[in-house]
């Protein structure tokens, strides 16, 4: 079934391309772009043990404009890992080689003790747009989030601000139908199939604009839950005011269990000198209110709209701005109340040349361990990026 789908998809693209190439130039039909990054990183909890790791990260986005209505897209993410963590972690390759989609498009090409090369197709879809309709089938990003930091409405591929090197996020294997009811309003239905309904998401969204606010309401079968929610994006005077909330209730025992509320709201403001501030609050009604043993995870991939933070009440602040015309600085802080977890992410970004960028990002974790608030881990990431 999975293989058939893939073949069908490939055939459609190839057919579409050979058909349209007769009339158009290659460049008008196929658009290839992406980047190559080299990301060395250093991690330590105290100065005694520094481990250094290396990542070469390449992304190839291929977009094919098959006809006026049909577009196909395939994005490939290639990563080469080497360094001390790879050396010290048995089955590192297997850890990376994960694909939660319907079709396994994760490929472990090199799996040695010292080096791992992993390729993943995280977008592979066919899009049909005509008039006010848009239908998209295949692996795609369905981004329903509104806030910068926490997206309670982002049911399909929850965004994670900590995972700064993967802003594209993994795709969902889904069928999505959108109908635009107005200039800034639309209805959307998306279906991410699983083995059974408890592993599937069937969700609908209605987005509209009223009184200079964007509003959205969502309703979904979210795995074994029923999810109902909504969000807004607007402003109070000159300050941006956004929020989103989703209430998850298990379908079983629907009437006698209480659900989980995930609610995030944020304000943002740009000062005249170019300093941008974003502040956010998150409520995870299922979250913890006191310290537990072990390092709390801000996990790269475990984050979902239902559980955006392990703590019940969390706070986020980001400050960013240009230090020099080509040098940007930012600091993001996340605090989880009760568990007393604190995360700092300072970053500097330097524009070397038109397509060359350099950045330096720090990640510093603090938390409570044996009733003591202390430093739990630090990482420094250097990144050189070439975009093409």
């Amino acid at each position, binding site marked *: 079934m999975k293989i058939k789908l893939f073949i069908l998809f490939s055939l459609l693209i190839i057919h579409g391309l050979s058909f349209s190439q007769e009339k158009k130039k290659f460049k008008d039909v196929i658009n290839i772009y992406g980047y190559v990054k080299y990301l060395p990183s250093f991690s330590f909890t105290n100065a005694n043990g520094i481990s250094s790791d290396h990542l070469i990260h390449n992304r190839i986005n291929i977009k094919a404009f098959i006809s006026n209505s049909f577009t196909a897209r395939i994005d490939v993410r290639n990563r080469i890992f080497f360094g001390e963590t790879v050396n010290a972690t048995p089955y590192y390759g297997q850890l990376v080689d994960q694909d939660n989609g319907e079709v396994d498009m994760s490929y472990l090409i090199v799996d040695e003790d010292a080096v791992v090369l992993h390729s993943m197709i995280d977008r592979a879809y066919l899009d049909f*747009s005509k008039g006010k309709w848009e239908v998209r089938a295949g692996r795609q990003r369905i981004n329903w989030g509104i806030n910068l930091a926490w997206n309670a409405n982002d049911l399909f591929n929850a965004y994670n601000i900590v995972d700064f090197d993967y802003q594209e996020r993994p795709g969902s294997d889904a069928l999505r139908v959108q109908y*635009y009811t107005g200039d800034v309003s639309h209805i959307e239905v998306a279906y991410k199939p699983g083995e059974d309904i408890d592993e599937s998401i069937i969700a609908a969204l209605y987005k509209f*604009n009223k009184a200079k606010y964007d509003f959205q309401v969502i309703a979904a079968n979210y795995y074994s839950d029923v999810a109902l929610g909504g969000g807004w994006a607007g402003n109070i*005077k*000159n300050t941006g005011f956004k929020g989103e909330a989703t209430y998850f209730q298990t379908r079983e025992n629907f009437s006698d269990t209480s659900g989980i509320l995930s609610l995030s709201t944020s304000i943002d403001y740009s000062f005249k000198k*170019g300093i941008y501030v974003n502040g956010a609050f998150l409520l995870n009604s299922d979250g913890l209110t006191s310290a537990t043993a072990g390092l709390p995870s801000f996990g790269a991939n475990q984050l979902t709209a239902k559980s955006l933070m392990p703590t019940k009440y969390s706070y986020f602040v980001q400050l960013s701005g240009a230090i020099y015309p080509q040098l940007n600085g930012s600091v993001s802080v996340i605090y989880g109340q009760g568990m007393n977890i604190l995360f700092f992410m300072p970053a500097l970004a330097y524009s070397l040349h038109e397509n060359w960028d350099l950045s330096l990002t720090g990640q510093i974790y603090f938390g409570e361990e044996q009733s003591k608030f202390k430093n739990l881990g630090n990482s420094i990431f250097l990144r050189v990026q070439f975009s093409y």
Partner: protein
Amino acid sequence: MKRILFLSVLIFVSVPFIAQNKISAKEIVKKADDLMKGVKTTKAEMIITTVRPKWKRTMKMKTWSKGTNLSMILFTSPVKEKGITFLMKGKEVWNWIPSIERTIKLPPSMMMQSFMGTDFTNDDLVKQSSIVKDYNHKIIGEETIEGRKCYKIELIPHEDAAVVWGKIIVWISHDNYFQLKVNFYDEDDELVNKMRAYDIKNLGGRLLPAKMEITPMDKKGQKTVMEYTSLEFDVPFKDNFFTVQNMKRLK
């Protein structure tokens, strides 16, 4: 974009039979403004070069506008910014970021920020204030700019007008109504930005300055040059052109 388009539209060949000695300051500006309003739609391609000490950066973009309430901007270069789109509808602004596949509604305070690191502000691009309605006008002299005789006109905003500037002085040429020079002052009467327009050529069937250069006074060695590489007037756009849906499809 509105202001930039306005400035350019202001400049094209206008009514040649005006009795120039009788025309008032307001009329000069109004005629130019009427000319802008006469244009239903504008489509442009431009190159923006941001100049900093020891550094220079070039961006390419396409813009579409209809009336004073609707416009759209698409970045075509550099590759990192390619596909980023802005939609302006009245005072609301949406930003489509293809890498994260999200449409972001921008807060109004963002309007005061530099437009993509240039010396233009976002507000310069979506400005809704009217250079005719929001200001009082006075001819304060005549000067020759780049060999052309110009009216020197002072613009003072009305007290209740929601405008950024405390005062604007414009030099509009007697012939063709080219707006060759503009000085922008803040509320303390301090000169903030100087703009000049030059390189007059035929664009979209009209004689226009192809280049506009803005220089901030308080930053040494900085300027931004905007050059039109293509302009088309009154090309019809389809009904659902200025929509969130179309932002994602622009090429």
